[in-house]
Each structure stands twice: as C-alpha cells, then as structure tokens.
C-alpha cells in the first residue's frame, strides 16, 4: 500500500514557488483549473521512498489570505477544505519581512507549516545573514534555508516537511494581539462562535472572528448563508453588529478601521521578530544592487521606452518569424495528407469531410501550435526575468486612460498591434494580467488588431481599389485598429466591465536569469493545454462549418445537368484528355458547379437571407457567404469569394484573377471596398479565437458576446462609412 501525503506549496508571487515545484516534481505534473475559476491548479508527485509518495499541490502565489482576489480565495479554500498534512511556505530570504506577512496568516489559521527560506544564496551575496535557529524558535515553526534554483537544501526541506506531516498534529493557531479594543471584541466573538458551533465544522472559531473583523466578503457571505440554513440568524446578526460597534469605536477614537489595525499589528509582530537579531546585514541597506542598476537604464525616461520597443519588436519577430518554418512544415504535411486522400477516395461527401472538414479543422488547430510555443517561450523569458513587470510599470499611465493596465500592451501587440500577429496567442497572453476586469477588457478587444489572416484579405482589397498608396493605407488601418481597440476597451470598462481600476500596487521583482528547465516546462504546459482543450472544440466546430457550406447539396437533376455538360465537353474534344483548352473549360464548369452548390448550402441561404440587411453596408450575398466562412478563419474570406464569384481556380492562385474580377465587377467600387475592409477588421473573431476567449474567461457567455458585439459594431461602422461616402458621392 502506497502512502500518499498531501503537501501544499504556498508563498508570495516571485518567491520561487514554481522553481521549487518543478525541481520537486520534474515532469510528473498535471495542470488543470480549480473548479469554476480560471486559476491554474498544478499538481505533481514527489517520491520520498519507494512506498511513500507525496502529492504536491502548487497553490497560486498570493500576498495574503483575504478574499481580495480569486487566487487568495482558491489558496485559502484549498488549505481549509483539503487540509494538507503540511504546507511549505516559500519565502524570499532577501525580502523576509514582507514575505512573513503571509506566513503570519498561515500561523493564525493553524496549518502545519514549514518555512523554506528561498534564495538564501542571493541573500548571502547581498551580505544578509539570517539566524535560522532563532527565527524558527521565535515563530515555533521549522525553518530550512534553500536555493530552489541550485537545489541546495531542498532535500533537508522535504525531510523536515515529512517529519511535520507524519507527526500529524492538530491544527494549532497562534494568537496575535491586535490592541485592547480588537482583542476584547475578538474574544467575545470567538466565544459566541464556539458556543453556537457557528461554522466551526469548517473554520477555526478565532480565525472566523478575525475574518469578520477584517470584513472579509467571502466569509461574511458564508456566515449569512449558514445562519439562514441553520436557524442561527440571530448569531450571524450579532456577529455583524459586534463588528459594527468596534469599527465605530475605532473610527471615533483612532480614525482607523479594524482591518487596517490588524495589518499594522501583524507587521508589528513581524518587525518585533526581525529586530531580535534574526536578520543582520553586513552592507548598508541602501546599497545599490545590480538589479537596481539595470533598472536605472531600463526604466529610464528616454532609454526605457526605446528599449521596451526593441524588446517587444524582438518578441514579435521571434514569435512570427521563427515559427514560420515549422508552420510551413505542418502545412506541407497536411497538404500531402490531403492529396493522399484525394487520390485514394472517390469524390464525394466522405472525401470532402476528411479533407475540408477534418484535416482543415485539425490543421487549423495544429497550425497555431508552433506560434503558441514560440510566443509562450518568449513571454516566459520576459516574465521569468522580471522584465514584464517593468513594461507594465512604464505603459500603465497610457493604458489606464482606457481602463486597461500597463500589462495590456503585450497581448495587443501579439494580436496584431504590429500588423500580422495572431489573436490566439494574444488572448492567451492576457494571463499575465492579474487584474480581472482589465484582463477581460484586454482579451475582448485584442481581436480587433489586424492579425496575419486578415492581412491577405486587406491586401487584396487595398491592392485592387487603393493601388498607389498601399503602404500608407495599411499603416492607417493599423493605427485605426489601435484606436478602435482602446476606445472599445474604454466603452466596455464604463459599461459591462464597469468598476474601479484594480490597484496597481505591484512588485518589481529582482532581475533573474530564467532557467532553461523552467522555460521548457512553462512552454510545454501551455502549448499542451491549448492542443488538448481548444483542439477538441475546434475540430467539432470546423466540421459544423464544413457541413453548413456543403449541405444541402445540389439536387439530382442539377447534378445530372452538370454531368451531362461535362460529358458533352469531353465528347467535343474527342476524348483528348491532355488538351489545355478542355482542362480550362472543365475547370470553369467545376467552378460554376461549386458556386451553385454553395448557393444551395445553409451558408449560401444564410448569405442571401442576410442580404436583406447587409445591403446597407454594401455587401451582396456572395460577400456574405465569404464573411460567414471567415468566421472559421479569416483566410477563408478570399477563397470563398473566389468560389462565390465562380472562378475556375479556387485558392491562392485565384487571388490575382479575383482582384481583376472585383475591379471589373459593376457593383464594386472604392466605397464598398472600404466598407468591407472595416467590417473584416472588426467583425466576429475567428472561431479559434472565440474558443480561446471562452477558455480564458471560463464562460461561453463571453465567447458569444465577442461574436455578437464585434459583428454589430463592425456592421454599424461599415454602414455609416458606406452611407456617408455614398451621400458625399465618393463612389465614382
């Protein structure tokens, strides 16, 4: 029988939690989500001995255990509900004072804790020495100095953790003093809670009282629910009243609130411990470290923005240039597979399903994989090194105007802020934003950028109707995408995503050289998540889209007519198969047939139906079909337009002739082209992006929102531009 011990890793962000987790579990880890929220849950196993395994759970990095953010709630709920046998609290030895604030809260909760003094080597280099024994004695908790990066002390840490876990002691909370007023309120409340067994099955009584005093929204809410269900309403009300009384008293006498006083006393307690000679420095505290010296240049008023621009351009180049080769290999692979199937299967629905539906769908998913891998690798470097926090620091002033956050800049750029990106990695990159509303606004507006798939469509239209100033036009459209994205973000932040800006109080972590192992694990994890989760949905959707563009097909009579025409042509040329003229004629016939089939399909009918509205923006039914198809992937707009305009050749080689056809078409002109360009830029994101939005927000609601909202917005914009230009007589 294998004995499994549950161990939680907890600590502040930047304490080196992930590094320790990776070194403990190696590749034996599993990444999922906590139920109902988008916070990642990482688990892995660590083998102590052949018959003893430890399940290691990496809790999200937090500064506190209040209900301030989802991460904190998740971390705290895990400790309370899952009752791990031991918690390893990772702290930064060079920043001990601040990191002990969280430690303090673990001790108040009573969980069995072992403190890991991480980055002890860095602290040593900085001339900071820590009296480990004294710290351990004063806190009454085992303390082990480690360096998660080099592995120093990790074994000793695990041994200590095993000792604590196997001791299996009861939860034992420490009781800090918060001053007379709060202490007496706390005592009274604790007694009331214990006497009535108010939620004591779940929470320790004193801890619960403390959370009431801190006006912890989650706990107060739970208290109300419990009071209602268990008929203890008077107890719940009494608790809230006691908080109100003491709050009032503090307001009058000290002009403060209980939660402020509690935080002050916690830090007071920590300072009293540190000052007993736990930490001693051989250098002056104000000494300038290498990290600060880097910051002097990197966040300098002049150099800072220039360096940032170079770094972001570099990331962009890295992601889109270097991934081009593997993407091309994949395309060649899928092209080969398509040809194999075309040669081995007779024409028909099965072949079409396999080539257009399934290979198209899976190809669509896998085609993004190299892109996502490169992007996450690049971001991991920026994030792990600490540079990303500096970008947020420098850009915050501008993005805040639009209700966003300094960290919003990167997702925008990846999505096509520099024309040619992709919204899929862009949306996924919003994970680096820790503020929920700003993050939502960013990921909903990032798809407005001109991604690489929109570019060929835009290029075709610009080349046909705005020849002469193509570069200038493209630049203007790029600027326009930024303006629209930022303004829409602002609009969302004052309507559906209304709310105070999330406080910016943020840490600028010390610069660190990322480890290759960390980067590799990080990249692999994210990429695999994408393939596994987005992949299945996208496959289903692409089959669905294929079906709407295929069924119902031509009627038997129509099929018969086409077959007859075909035979006639072949007969005319007397069976000379190689004839170029014949091939051309046959291709034309196939094109006409494809056009008619498309007209018949659900998508075609939809296109016709939509014409009733879309004429306002100048779109005919053929354009509508192409736009509907474009929801599958923006590149499809061109090929579908090609099919709809009945060109013999379908696909890339049709571009040239499509351009000519459009230029000649009587109902096409500059105004219509401009209207279409604007619509394509801003309407519904492609389905892969929508699926990513759903994954990242955790709800289909936001996916649906982005389809409906963006399409409505794009349509209104296109209509206004079209109608105004027509009225001004610009169509000629």
């Amino acid at each position, binding site marked *: 029988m294998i004995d499994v011990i549950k161990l939680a890793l907890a600590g502040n962000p930047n304490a080196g939690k992930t590094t320790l987790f990776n070194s403990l579990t190696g590749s034996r880890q599993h990444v999922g989500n906590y139920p109902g929220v988008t916070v990642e849950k990482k688990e892995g196993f660590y083998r102590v001995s052949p018959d003893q395994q430890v399940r290691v759970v990496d809790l999200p990095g937090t500064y506190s255990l*209040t209900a301030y953010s989802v991460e904190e709630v998740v971390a705290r709920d895990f400790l309370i509900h899952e009752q791990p046998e031991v918690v390893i609290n990772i702290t930064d030895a060079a920043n001990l004072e601040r990191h002990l604030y969280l430690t303090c809260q673990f001790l108040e909760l009573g969980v069995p804790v072992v403190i890991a003094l991480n980055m002890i080597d860095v602290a040593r280099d900085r001339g900071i020495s820590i009296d480990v024994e004294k710290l351990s004695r004063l806190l009454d908790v085992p303390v082990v100095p480690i360096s998660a990066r080099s592995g120093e002390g990790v074994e000793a840490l695990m041994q200590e953790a095993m000792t604590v876990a196997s001791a299996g002691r009861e939860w034992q909370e420490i009781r800090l003093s918060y001053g007379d007023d709060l202490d007496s309120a706390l005592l009274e409340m604790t007694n009331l809670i214990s006497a009535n067994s108010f939620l004591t099955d779940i929470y320790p009584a004193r801890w619960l009282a403390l959370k009431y005093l801190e006006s912890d929204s989650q706990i107060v809410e739970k208290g109300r629910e419990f009071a209602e269900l268990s008929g203890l309403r008077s107890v719940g009300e009494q608790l809230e009243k006691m908080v109100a009384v003491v709050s009032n008293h503090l307001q009058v006498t000290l002009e403060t609130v209980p939660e*402020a006083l509690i935080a*002050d006393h916690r830090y007071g307690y920590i300072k009293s411990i540190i000052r007993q000679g736990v930490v001693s420095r051989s250098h002056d505290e104000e000494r300038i470290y290498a990290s600060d010296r880097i910051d002097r240049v990197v966040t300098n008023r002049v150099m800072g923005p220039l360096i940032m621009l170079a770094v972001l351009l570099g990331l962009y180049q890295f992601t889109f240039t270097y991934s081009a080769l593997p993407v091309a290999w994949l395309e060649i692979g899928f092209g080969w597979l398509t040809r194999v199937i075309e040669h081995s299967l007779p024409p028909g629905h099965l072949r079409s399903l396999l080539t257009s539906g399934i290979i198209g769908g899976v190809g669509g998913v896998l085609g993004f994989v190299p892109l996502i891998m490169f992007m996450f690798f690049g971001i991991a470097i920026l994030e792990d090194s600490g540079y990303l926090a500096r970008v947020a620091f420098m850009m915050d002033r501008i993005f805040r105007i639009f209700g966003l956050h300094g960290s919003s800049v990167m997702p925008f750029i990846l999505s096509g802020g520099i024309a040619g990106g992709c919204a899929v990695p862009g949306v996924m990159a919003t994970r680096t934003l820790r503020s929920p509303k700003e993050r939502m606004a960013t990921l909903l507006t990032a798809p407005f950028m001109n991604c690489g798939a929109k570019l060929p469509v835009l290029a075709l239209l610009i080349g046909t109707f705005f020849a002469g100033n193509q570069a200038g036009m493209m630049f203007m459209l790029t600027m326009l995408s930024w303006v629209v994205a930022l303004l829409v973000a602002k609009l969302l932040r004052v309507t559906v995503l209304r709310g105070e800006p999330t*406080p910016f*109080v943020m840490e600028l972590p010390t610069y660190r050289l990322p480890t290759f192992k960390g980067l590799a694990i990080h990249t692999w994890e994210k990429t695999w998540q994408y393939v596994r989760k987005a992949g299945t949905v996208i496959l289903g959707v692409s089959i669905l889209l294929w079906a709407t563009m295929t069924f119902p097909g031509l009627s038997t009579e129509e099929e018969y007519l086409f077959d007859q025409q075909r035979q006639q042509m072949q007969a005319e040329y007397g069976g000379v198969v190689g004839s170029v003229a014949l091939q051309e004629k046959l291709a034309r016939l196939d094109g006409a047939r494809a056009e008619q089939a498309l007209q018949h399909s659900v998508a075609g009918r939809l296109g016709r139906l939509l014409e009733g509205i879309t004429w306002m923006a100048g779109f005919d039914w053929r354009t509508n079909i192409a736009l509907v198809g474009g929801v599958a992937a923006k590149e499809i707009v061109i090929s579908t337009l090609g099919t709809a305009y009945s060109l013999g050749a379908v696909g890339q080689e049709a571009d040239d002739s499509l351009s000519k056809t459009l230029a000649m078409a009587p109902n096409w002109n500059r105004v219509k082209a401009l209207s279409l360009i604007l619509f394509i830029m801003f309407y519904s994101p492609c389905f892969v992006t929508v699926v990513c939005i759903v994954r990242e927000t955790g709800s289909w609601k936001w996916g649906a929102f982005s389809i409906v909202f963006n399409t409505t917005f794009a349509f209104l914009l296109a209509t206004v531009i079209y109608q105004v230009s027509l009225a001004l007589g610009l169509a000629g």
Partner: protein
Amino acid sequence: MSRMMLRKMLKNQSGTITAVKVAGELGRRIREMGLVPGTKVTIQGRAPLYDPVALRVMGGTLTLRNNEADLIEVEVEESSE
C-alpha cells in the same frame, strides 16, 4: 522632520510612513505589501510619464500609481538630495 504625502516626495528621498488613509480593497492591498505605519520607504524613480512611482521598501521594489501614493502620509528626513 516634516510630514507630506508620498506623491510629493522627490527621487531618492526617504521617509517613514505615518498613516495609510484608505480602507477597503485598496487599503488592504497597500498594507499587505508592507506599506504600514513605521515602514521606511525611499523613492527609487518614476515611470517615463511620471506615474506610477517606484519605491524601495524593506529591500524590495514596489510600484504605486500617483493617486494611490496620495493616500500615504510620510514623515521625511530633511531633504537629502
């Protein structure tokens, strides 16, 4: 010795926090990062557009927006240029 709001402090100036005048989420967030009365802070620099501000606190660096720095009162040592 004089008291001023953190926002008014100059680069490289140091002081000791005397009060954090905000409750609720923002207050909680500011306090849990160690910005409580008695903590020593030094202005490390400002972003290119003068906002946010970077502070040196207990051996680490924190950033605050100016409107958040407006809520923190500091007792400064005489101007140390």
